[in-house]
Structure formats: C-alpha cells, structure tokens
C-alpha cells in the first residue's frame, strides 16, 4: 500500500493563543514494500508527520493518499478504522500501553476491536509472538512481569496482530540496550523482506537510517529538507550538518581515511562491515 503526502500542513492548537506551526509543504512518497526512514533534529516535525500516516492528525492544508483513500484538508472523514488497521503505528515506549492481565489478552485486544473473533484473535496472537521472537509460553504471563525488552516486543506483537500493511515505528529502540536494539531492528527488516511489510522508521539514529533504509526523508524545521537513497543522502555530508544532523560514524570514519588516501573510495559505505571490507580490498590492490 503506497502512501503519498502532498503539500501537507499542520499547526498545533490551531485557532487558540497556543497555536504554532508544526509542519508545512510536506510532500513525499512511501512506496509499497519499501523501508523508509524519516530523520531530523529534535522538534523537526518527524512525530507530527507520523501521526498523519494513519490520520490521527488531519492536514490543515494539502492531502494524503493512503492506498485508495485520499484524506484532504477541510473535509469530514468517516470510516478511518480500516486505515488505522492497515497502518499500524508503534509509538515511543509502546510498552506503556500494555494493560491486560495476560500477554495473550493484550495482543488480542486490537484485532477483536476490529471485529476478529476471539478464536482467530488467539491464533493471531500466537503468530505474532513468534514473529517478534518470543516463546509461546509468554502468552499466559502478565505483561508486567516481563523485562523492558520483552514488553516492547509484546507491544509490537499487538500491532502486528492487526495484520497491517504498513508498520510505522517511532524510535522503536529507545531505551533498549545495544543487543536488544540490534535484535529489534533485524526483526523489522525480516518482516519487511519476508512478509512484504512497508516499514516507516522515525529515528534520529543516522546509523540505523544508513543500515536499514531504502529511502530517507530528512525533516528540518517542519519541512522536507531532502529525500533520497542512503548513499545519495550521505554522500553530501555538508547538507546534513547544515540542518544540525550528524553523519553516520561510518561515513565520518571513511572521510578521515579518504583524507589520508588523498582520494575518495569508490562508494560511500553505509555500515562499518562494508567499510572494513572496502579498505581491505584496497590494501589487496595496492600491495
């Protein structure tokens, strides 16, 4: 399912003395099945954009195409339920939303709200815990007896059980340790590659954007600063630093090395593994 934003504008507390602009002129395309990262400085409008993706916020100007639906400014929209099912959002610290007595009940809550029978919801819960890499016996446990990392997975399973086409992730690894972070990120890539889910990752980790995304959207002061593939985006480091963003550590290290070498390497490397291999290859050629 494609999502297209066209000239979207939103202001917080519109029509009150607290009114302030959040985003303006935001246009970009999330192609079906791709992994798109939205990056930007704190307060750049990333989270506001995210809430438009399943119409938790409606644009004050412009329009959003979500699959076959078009949500335009100034129109009353009905039947948003289907959009909310198909675009699943995993919010920051999703484990704060867990509330049921057992993991199974918690995961079933979403699908049953959307009209799935209890039996089918239970089947989905089982599938979902497997997808997020948790053992089956966790279904009978209280979500509040789990570790932070496990709670996060349960919360994500609750979104997956609704069988969304698009998975929107808002800083999904905040607060997890490095191993937990890597496991969760690999899980999302797996869901994208094997289950064909479209992934939208909202992050300030340049490393994650470089490693996982097919396409990057850079937000700056409520507007789209640039869009492109990771290699395009990170080739032009100055454009990133001009909007207060860091370049990935790998790219910075590559630049340090290129300064010694006196010329650029063949490609911008996006992960440390790729860069180590590239430098290894170069040594083989020289000696």
């Amino acid at each position, binding site marked *: 399912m494609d999502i297209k934003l066209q000239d979207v504008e939103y202001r917080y507390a519109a029509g009150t003395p607290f009114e302030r602009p959040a985003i303006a002129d935001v246009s970009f395309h999330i192609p079906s099945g791709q992994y798109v990262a939205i990056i930007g400085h704190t*307060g750049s409008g990333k989270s506001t954009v995210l809430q438009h993706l399943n119409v938790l916020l409606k644009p004050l100007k412009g329009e959003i195409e979500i699959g076959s639906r078009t949500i335009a400014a100034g129109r009353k929209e009905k039947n948003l339920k289907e959009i909310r099912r198909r675009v699943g959002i995993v919010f920051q610290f999703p484990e704060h939303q867990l509330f049921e007595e057992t993991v199974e009940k918690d995961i079933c809550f979403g699908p049953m709200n959307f009209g799935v029978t209890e039996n089918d919801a239970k089947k989905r819960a089982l599938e979902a815990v497997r997808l997020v890499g948790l053992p089956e016996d966790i279904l009978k446990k209280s979500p509040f007896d789990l570790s932070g990392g496990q709670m996060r997975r349960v919360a994500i399973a609750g979104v997956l059980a609704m069988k969304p086409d698009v998975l929107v992730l808002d800083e999904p690894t905040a607060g997890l*340790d490095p*191993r*937990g972070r890597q496991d969760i990120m690999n899980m999302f890539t797996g869901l994208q590659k094997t289950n064909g889910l479209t992934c939208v990752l909202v992050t300030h980790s340049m490393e994650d954007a470089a490693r996982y995304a097919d396409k990057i959207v850079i937000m700056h002061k409520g507007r789209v600063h640039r869009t492109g593939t990771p290699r395009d985006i990170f080739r032009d480091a100055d454009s990133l630093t001009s909007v*207060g*963003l860091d370049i990935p550590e790998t790219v910075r*290290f590559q630049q340090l090395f290129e300064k010694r*070498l006196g010329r650029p390497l063949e490609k911008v490397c996006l992960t440390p593994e790729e860069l*180590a291999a590239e430098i*290894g290859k170069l040594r083989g050629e020289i000696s």
Partner: protein
Amino acid sequence: MNTIVISIKGVSYQYPEQESLALNNVSLDVYKGEWLAIVGHNGSGKSTLAKMLNGLHYPSKGTVMIGGYALNEENVWSIREKLGMVFQNPDNQFVGTTVQDDVAFGLENNGVEHGVMQERVFASLEKVGMTAFLNQEPHHLSGGQKQRVAIAGVIALRPDIILLDEATSMLDPLGREEVMNTVRELNEKEGLTVISITHDLEEAAKADRVIVLNEGRLYTEGTPQSIFQLDRELLNLGLGVPFAVQMSQLLADAGLQLSQRHFNEEELVSELWTLNFKM
C-alpha cells in the same frame, strides 16, 4: 574527591513474584564531585539500583547510606532534596501546564520564595537551552525537548547529586551532547556529583569511573579506558562498544595490520595508514 556521599553495602533486592534477585549483594561507594557511570544490559539491575538511591525501593538486604544517613522511610524526603533524579521517559514526570510552571513545581513544594523561584526557573531553563518555550505545554514538546525540561526541573532544586537514568536516550546526538555538556558544567564548576545510568558507552567514556552491572551483580569497575580493554567481552555483557573499537575489530578481521584496539578514531586512521598503506 575522597568524601563518600553514597555508600551501598551488600544490597540485594527481589521484586515480588520474581524468581531471581534483581540486585545481588552489590556494594559500592560514590565520591563527592565525581561523574560515575553505571552501565549494564536491560535487566542487569541498573534501574533497580537507581530506585534504591532515593527510596523508591528499599533493599531486601544490606544498607544504602546517603550523606552519612541510612536511607529509610523517615528521612527519605530530606534525602530526595539532596538527590535529584531524571528518568528515561519525561512524560512520567510532568505536572505543570506550562514549561515554567513545571520547572517551578519542585521549588514551590519546597517553599522557595517567589522572586528567587522565578530567577531559578529561568536560569535552569537557560542552562538547558529551553527559554524560548517558557509558556508552552510540556506535552506538546518533542521527546528531546521534554527531556531537557525534566532536567531543568531537577537542576532548579540545586541537588548535591543528580542521577540520570537513561535520561538522554531519546535525544538526538547533538541534543544529547548539549545536555551532557550542561550537566558536565555543573559537575565541574559547582561540584555536582553525577551518577549516569546508561548503556551508551560513548557517554560512559566521559565518566571519571565506570561500574559494570551484569545480572544483578557488580561485574567490574574501573576507569573508562580499563573497561574498554574488555573488548568483545563487552558485547557478551550486552553493551555496545565505541565505534573506533568496533571498527578496529572489523579491520583486523578484514586482514589489516593493527597493534591494538583503538578508542580514538584519528589514532586508528593514523595507524591503519602507517602499518598498511604507507609505501
């Protein structure tokens, strides 16, 4: 540097209905004016330890001494004035309807006079770079901005010790550096004791001392330099290694000559060049 401000002796803690101990016989001292980083994987006991320090939990065994007093239910309120805590998710800490009200809340509770309060609120928000947001609602701020307001709320109370529990985990790298510099300035100029609970080893690298927790036990302690020599062992502990250390490992795996694991990127590039590419 040698005055002990917190002394933890033989502390164990078990959560109700949990089989294993969250903390298992942990002893450590915190010195006045130091920057102490406590690192460990999720579930290693870091946050439980933090909660021991201001009486959100009391040890099942052992004692926690703060400023010479054993922490108990009677003195917990005066001890909370000495030790300010910033949690991972600032949403759990907001009470005011505007940023400045929120920062003023703690001061008001402590009966600080109005004029002084206004000065301190402004000064604290200035230190975290949030004076442009005085009258906004905290809940409408971005995650990183919220975190800075939460830190301002604690700084305003002028505690002797500040405890940051993953308090910068939601900030972007620049925002994180700004906030950490703020805390560092208070640490250096005003002698604020800082305990930073983190799994960000880059952040821990700037501490005076690092304590590593693993499965509820104190695994090791030392200077950041000595901790990073643990190399791949750190990965097994669920901790991320600094980029240059990781890059050193990968380059060595790719067959490049290196004499050691480098902590500093410039030094790594220098040696990489000298040993492998200089004809």
